[in-house]
């Protein structure tokens, strides 16, 4: 076990209920370990940045928490419920109340901006659904772009649509996979402030994957460093 929760300097209050808890999580691909025996816990509403070099296992860790992959060993609990265990996902991704912003954008080419958000808002009464869509559009400063398709948007707009889609699910956690990578500094700064404001307003927990320490420090008080699939720093 190489996790360091509760050590001096850790942002976690051990008395707080643990909203997300990873216990002894490992994952390998084609015999190569990606994550090794990882322990981690996060309290509700906490903000955590995961940093580390390329290939350290940052995105894989995010995907395990999101429920897109199951660990080989260990377990993941969300609000004390068993969400994933060795080789098995017990709570599917869309039932975890998490919104994921993908590094590639992952916008569906056949859907307009508003269709993305309606899809994410799910099966709700029409008024409630449209309210969610409007709130997500406003939070991400996408007013006027509702009818556009992904290929009609700039890179920064696409990132904001990805964020708005995640917010439209009314998640409790926002999972961000390198959300600011490859953006010009002014665009990155604008998107950072949009993320910060949206997360603060909705009191969301945030897990940010990045290789940029400044970006991590600007959004998250707690920082976790991964190297070769092992947790080497948690402060």
């Amino acid at each position: 076990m190489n996790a360091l929760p509760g050590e001096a300097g850790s942002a976690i209050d051990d008395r707080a209920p643990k909203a997300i808890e990873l216990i002894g999580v490992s994952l390998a691909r084609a015999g190569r370990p990606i994550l090794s025996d990882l322990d981690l816990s996060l309290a509700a509403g906490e903000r955590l940045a995961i940093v580390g070099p390329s290939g350290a296992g940052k995105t894989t860790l995010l995907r395990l928490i999101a429920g897109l992959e199951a660990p080989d060993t260990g377990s993941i609990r969300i609000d004390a419920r068993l969400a994933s265990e060795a080789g098995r996902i017990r709570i599917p991704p869309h039932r975890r109340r998490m919104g994921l912003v993908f590094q590639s954008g992952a916008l569906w080419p056949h859907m307009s901006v508003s269709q993305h958000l309606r899809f994410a808002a799910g099966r709700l009464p029409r008024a409630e659904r449209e309210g969610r869509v409007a709130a997500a559009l406003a939070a991400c400063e996408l007013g006027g772009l509702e009818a556009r398709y992904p290929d009609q948007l700039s890179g920064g707009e696409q990132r904001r649509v990805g964020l708005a889609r995640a917010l439209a699910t009314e998640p409790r956690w926002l999972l961000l996979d390198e959300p600011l990578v490859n953006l010009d500094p002014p665009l990155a700064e604008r998107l950072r402030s949009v993320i910060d404001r949206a997360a603060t307003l909705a009191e969301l927990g945030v897990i940010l994957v990045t290789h940029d320490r400044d970006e991590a420090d600007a959004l998250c008080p707690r920082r976790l460093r991964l190297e070769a699939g092992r947790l080497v720093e948690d402060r």
Partner: protein
Amino acid sequence: MPGVEALGLLGFLVCVHLPILALCQPLVARLVGSPAGATALADLAWPSGRQLDLLGASLEVSLAATGMAGLLGLLAALSSRPRGRLLRGLPLALVAVPPYVHALAWSTVLFRVETTLRGLGLAIELPRSGPGVTAWVMAMSRLPLTYGMAAIALGLLPDAPIEAARSVRSDRAVLLRIAIPLAAPIAAAGLALAFLLSLLDYGVPALFQVNVLALGVFADYSASGDAARALAMAMPLVVLAAGACLALVAGWRRAALSQPRGDGHPTWIALLPRGLRGLSGLAMALVLLQAAALCAGLFVAAGSPARILAALLPARGDLIYSLSVALGASLLALGPALALAGRLAAGEGRGMRRTLLWLATLLPLAVPAPLFGIGLIALWRGGPLAALLPLSAATLPVLASAGRFAPLAAVLLTAQLLRRDPSLVDAARMHQAGVLQGWWQVGLPLLGPGLLAAAGLVFTLALGELGATLMVLPPGRSTLTARTFNYLHYGASEAVAGACLVLALATVLVATVVLQAFAAGQGMARGSEGLS
């Protein structure tokens, strides 16, 4: 949805593998049952005497046709002209036109050329039968395939490694050491498929009076009705075709996994020496000429549109049955092909299991079409499945086409699945309200063009399917293809030419839709990656 996938895989097993197993059953029973019977079958499987001659003729014709089609196809694909997508795509749309339609068109062209020459005082007799003209017609009918696969191979060549190599080595070295090795597996897959199809085809050789082993097997079964004997006789063909399938596995996996480059000017064009560019231009002209020969030959033979219509009216029952069979086969093949494609795509990067899965997909292509039909008869007429699920005889041609072409649909869908940006599906899994909603609103639209292309591929191939259909056609029913093939033996008439022309135009039309759908699917599968 694991239950649905399991059902699809079961469908593939029933449609594709069970007829082959049913075909093998009497052979195994005979081999195990009596030593004398086993010896006789072993003698048949190890060709000698006339069978060896037939195998020699099969190899001679198919190797010559593959060589010609391969060389011309590669040279034409190297040509940078014509630049228009329509003209460059036209030969590809001919890929599913049945070989015997080419045979009719070329017969007409050769006859007209001979008549014209005679009118000019040149009494040159052009060959109208024999291995030479058979190989030529086979080569022309496979040319769209070899050209298409070579064009795909070159189209998938990435620019960056070639540019990097050009900075350190001569163009000749880069062409020989980088570009050709990178393109070779996919182009070789085209050659392997052309060889396989030519080796197993007996239609064109029969029309040009060349006896090949596939024709011998068909004739022997027609006379004896002995499935074990037919399979034993066909064993050399199956072994050779299985070898071609192994080449297909490597090439098609590479094609499925490669990302297409953009529409910009490809880097490899600059590597071609001047002489080769001239030759490639000539080859491209020949590719377009054979497309023109096909159309002109059929138009000339068919006469006026009124005559074509008059010829078609009596055959409208066959036409409707053909379309129903093709539609039924395309719908039936889709589910099993999609389920298998899901497994093939998921199995990427897992060594032996992946290879076995690809072999299970492609090896059925090595079974000659008449033998597949015989397997279907064994399975559904009196076999155990017939009792469990009694089917009307009119549905057997549907099963024949679905079973023969589902592997190709699976390969095409695998390519589509492997090129799909996985984050698009992950995003749906994260943000969907339920699994069905995610599949309906995201999964299906992303796969839609691929499904349309796969259905269209099976439809066009089923329209021209002959070998297995002839074996399983119920009394009193005929497909347009079967009727046309039977008519051809009495000499080309306007009625036959009219039917062939309609068949060719229908095939080209559907093939064009398939190509457009697949191209659209490539764009959609990549999602928003790299936009703006």
